[in-house]
């Protein structure tokens, strides 16, 4: 029975096309609000993903006890990798090669062709064992670096402040007084490795005149085995090593970025709030201009509740269309855009969570934006409303 008293669904939809300029402006405003929400959520999700994708639960990092929580400050003997292989059971093996990666890790100034001045970048000296431990690393273009060569992560250009084409294969990079040729480009499933430059360990040691390592990354055959490496480091106190599960290491880094993430969510709330107010303003204007039409509908016998529902329907349809437009722009333009931060670079991520939040905000804009002005218009007596200009 209630359905019989409602205005036809088409009525609300047709109304949107009846005032094309107002509809377009409102749609544009809502799209921008939802897009802003999507960008901020994409920032938070990208940052979270970058840190969580970097840590593997089976991989344990062994580095100097005295380095605090910073691997860059770590210096351990070059023999640590072979010592670990010989002393700890449960190291994963791939076709007879143990997944133990000795690495030298440093932040240094890197210059690329086309850069006016060098930018701060991250360099990791690795051996061919590195991909055995860092399973997410995939060479997407070119070849593994030989002597005097490096391979660059997908987002390394963003970290050092260069253009993407400056770090293409065959281009030159210079850091720490040596020139390097880019031999390949790699992706690493959105992890922090993507913002790094990887060089052959021996070459990097020669360039830096260092024989030590920063860390050894060991891939154990199960997460439970990580404790055995920890146990080894505690037994051999003379080596002054410590072992931290890679997942725990990056989880601890996530704590440092908690205020940034919190700030991001506050921005989402503020943008959504301002969007609701903007929507309210637009809808007040839209409803005020239709007071006579709404009163006529009442005079024809439609109940106030039904007219209110139509106004909410119009606003919600508009907001949902805005959400879809914003999501499409987000997926096509925002998703994957590189952002530089202290630990490297990460890509903005428009994923299901971001889209769900953006669509939720849009629905909120539609319903909350339409209710108060519609309720106000419905309060006017019919005779007075029909006479209004």
């Amino acid at each position: 029975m209630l359905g019989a008293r409602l205005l036809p669904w088409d009525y609300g939809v047709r109304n949107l096309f009846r005032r094309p300029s107002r509809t377009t402006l409102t749609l544009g405003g809502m799209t921008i609000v939802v897009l802003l929400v999507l960008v901020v959520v994409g920032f938070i999700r990208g940052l979270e993903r970058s840190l969580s994708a970097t840590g593997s639960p089976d991989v344990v990092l062994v580095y100097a006890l005295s380095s605090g929580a910073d691997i860059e400050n770590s210096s351990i003997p070059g023999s640590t990798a072979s010592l670990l292989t010989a002393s700890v059971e449960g190291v994963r093996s791939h076709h007879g090669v143990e997944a133990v990666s000795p690495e030298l890790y440093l932040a240094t100034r890197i210059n690329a062709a086309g850069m006016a001045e060098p930018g701060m970048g991250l360099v990791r000296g690795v051996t061919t064992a590195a991909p055995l431990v860092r399973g997410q690393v995939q060479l997407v273009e070119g070849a593994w670096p030989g002597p005097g060569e490096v391979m660059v992560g997908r987002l390394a250009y963003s970290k050092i402040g260069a253009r993407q084409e400056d770090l293409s294969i065959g281009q030159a990079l210079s850091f720490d007084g040596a020139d390097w040729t880019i031999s390949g480009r790699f992706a690493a499933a959105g992890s922090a490795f993507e913002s790094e430059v990887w060089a052959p360990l021996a070459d990097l040691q020669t360039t830096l005149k260092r024989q030590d390592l920063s860390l050894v990354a060991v891939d154990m055959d199960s997460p439970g085995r990580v404790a055995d490496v920890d146990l080894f480091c505690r037994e051999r106190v003379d080596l002054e090593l410590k072992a931290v599960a890679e997942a725990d290491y990056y989880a601890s880094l996530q704590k440092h970025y908690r205020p940034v993430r919190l700030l991001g969510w506050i921005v989402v709330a503020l943008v959504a709030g301002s969007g609701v107010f903007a929507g309210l303003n637009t809808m007040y204007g839209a409803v005020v201009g239709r007071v006579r039409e709404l009163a006529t509908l009442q005079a024809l016998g439609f109940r106030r509740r039904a007219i209110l529902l139509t106004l909410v329907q119009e606003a919600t349809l508009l907001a949902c269309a805005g959400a879809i437009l914003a999501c499409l722009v987000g997926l096509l333009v925002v998703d994957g855009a590189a952002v530089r931060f202290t630990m490297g670079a990460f890509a903005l991520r428009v994923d299901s969570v971001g889209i769900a939040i953006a669509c939720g905000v849009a629905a909120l804009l539609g319903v909350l934006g339409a209710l108060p002005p519609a309720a106000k218009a419905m309060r006017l007596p019919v005779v007075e409303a029909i006479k209004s200009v």
Partner: protein
Amino acid sequence: MRRLNTAMTGAIAAGFAVLIGCGAPQAGAPLAGADADGSAYLLAEEPDGAMGVIQAREAAHDGDPIVLVGRIGGATNPWVEGRAAFTLLDPSMLVVDESQGMGEGQLCTGDCCATERQACTTLVKVVDPQGQLVAVDARKLLGLKEADMVVVSGTAKKDELGNFQLLATGVHVRR
């Protein structure tokens, strides 16, 4: 017009469904737990002849049966996850906050006290009758907590490089 409107509404709904369904599912694997009888390692009576970690580091030889007394601690994380092993601190030492000045008998868990910590702490590994480390977390196996004062009996393991640990066969908790 009705068909156009229905199509438009349907497109919006489908758009939402497609956009929200873009993410990949998250996978997680449960961890298996091990069952072991901790009562076999817990001592009701305190063993005699207990000495502190500092004294034991000096006096004990590799393979000596010894009884150690100390407090669980002396490290940021004194536990080895999933293993019946923990760091024991000499009872004469106190762990204080890194920001405070260190007095006599005090140390912190920061880098500044690394050498002092090495001299007054040891690793205790609870081993089964075959001498194998029990692969159950000490907190779960023995109900131990950080800062518990414990008396541990077992065998000293020491090498010429200064590494010292205790292979424990019995643990008594002072309440």
